[in-house]
């Protein structure tokens, strides 16, 4: 082998080794960068978890304080009661204004419920809950709607069922922004609620009551909405067509 070719092959070897070294160096830099990203992500996850745990606790605390007003027709259990107190059938409805199946229940049964309340068969206890607040892009639609309903129950109880029906008739899509405060106010006015009562919605006077009753209801073992109880027994029949619930109420009345 001539000196010339030997030099050439060494140069080649050196060049290759240099490329290899550069590549390794770059590889180490990438690994280090990746490690930093992983570390940051882990920190972010932990921070996010701590924040979430903190806000969860503070919410429960606020709800259990239970300051603020209670609607005049509220029961101790956290319901809004309408109809004859001596009616033979007590019907409890647990609902959230954001819950699509509550809307279906309401659309199927509201006519019948209005009639049963009006003729004194049923004492209706509505539990407007706010647990679906997280489904309205941070606008807390469930709380705003429930607060408005509680305000109407307090100041204009005669319009409660009409307003309740209107809210479900114009129910917003779950996961959207919900209805705006103005839209809620307009529905209330259309349902016959006086303007001075509508003006009270914005104060959110009953928000603590809604929070407290939501917490209390879930303590009692309610799993979700809509849940309907007839004289304390959970109604397990079809909630989404007109008829079965009326039949069950009639049967309970006969007992």
């Amino acid at each position, binding site marked *: 082998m001539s000196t010339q070719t030997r030099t050439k092959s060494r140069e080649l070897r050196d060049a290759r080794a240099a490329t290899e070294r550069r590549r390794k160096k770059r590889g180490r830099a990438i*690994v280090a960068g990746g490690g930093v990203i992983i570390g940051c992500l882990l920190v972010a996850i932990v921070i996010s978890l701590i924040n979430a745990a903190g*806000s969860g606790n503070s919410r429960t605390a606020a709800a259990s304080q239970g300051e603020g007003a209670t609607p005049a027709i509220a029961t101790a259990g956290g319901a809004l009661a309408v109809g004859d107190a001596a009616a033979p059938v007590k019907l409890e409805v647990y609902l959230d204004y954001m819950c699509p199946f509550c809307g279906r229940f309401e659309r199927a049964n509201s006519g019948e419920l209005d009639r049963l309340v009006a003729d004194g068969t049923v004492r209706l206890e509505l539990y407007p809950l706010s647990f679906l607040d*997280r*489904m309205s892009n941070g606008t807390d639609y469930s709380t705003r709607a429930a607060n408005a309903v509680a305000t109407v129950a307090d100041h204009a109880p005669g319009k409660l069922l009409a307003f309740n029906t209107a809210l479900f008739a114009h129910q917003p899509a779950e*996961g959207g922004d919900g209805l705006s405060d103005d839209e809620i106010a307009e529905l209330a006015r259309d349902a016959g609620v006086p303007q001075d009562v509508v003006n009270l919605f914005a104060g959110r006077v009953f928000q603590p009551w809604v929070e407290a009753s939501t917490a209390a209801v879930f303590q009692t073992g309610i799993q979700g909405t809509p849940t309907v109880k007839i004289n304390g027994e959970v109604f397990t029949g079809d909630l989404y067509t007109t008829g079965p619930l009326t039949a069950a109420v009639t049967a309970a009345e006969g007992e």
Partner: protein
Amino acid sequence: MAVLLARLHGLRHSNAWLFGTMLVSACLSLAASFVLSADALRLAADPGTSLSCDINAVISCGTVATSWQAQLFGFPNAFLGLVAEPVVITIAVASLGGVRFPRWFMFAAQAVYTLGVIFAYWLFSQSMLVIGALCPWCLLVTVSTTLVFTTLTHVNIRDGNLFLPPRAQAAAARFVEADLDAIAVTIWLLVLILAVVTKYGSALFG
């Protein structure tokens, strides 16, 4: 330490590890698809029924399962998992047993599974951003689909099954050989966790 690292490196590129991971992930995915399919049938029979995982408003398979996205092709999406995952399980078991599939076969598996991953992440984003509810079984599908996809890709890059141009193949092989894919997958999964925790953290503690 160096020996241990070298051994770990060797294990990570071995058939046993890769197809083992693929097998376990595919089995998890199949189990989740089975639960979701069963739930879909129960829900079709009785729309008001509450499902095994309806823990609260946010952690709710029912909310997700009743959305139109849950039946994109006119039947519950989970049926696709029931069809596809057994094929992955078969490939993993056969490969663990020493079978070597032809390049075109592995390439086809990669192509189809890539569509599956895209679909899984479309569903994940819909459930996060549009439906706004979290479904634990769906999340299990997302994670295990990711793991099957990454191990399948790892195998196919290692074995040169992807019909890439020589330079791209060499670059991909170097990437995997340097274990950078492990870092990429870790980051990928952590981003997923962060997204879920950030959006739903308060619900997990609610």
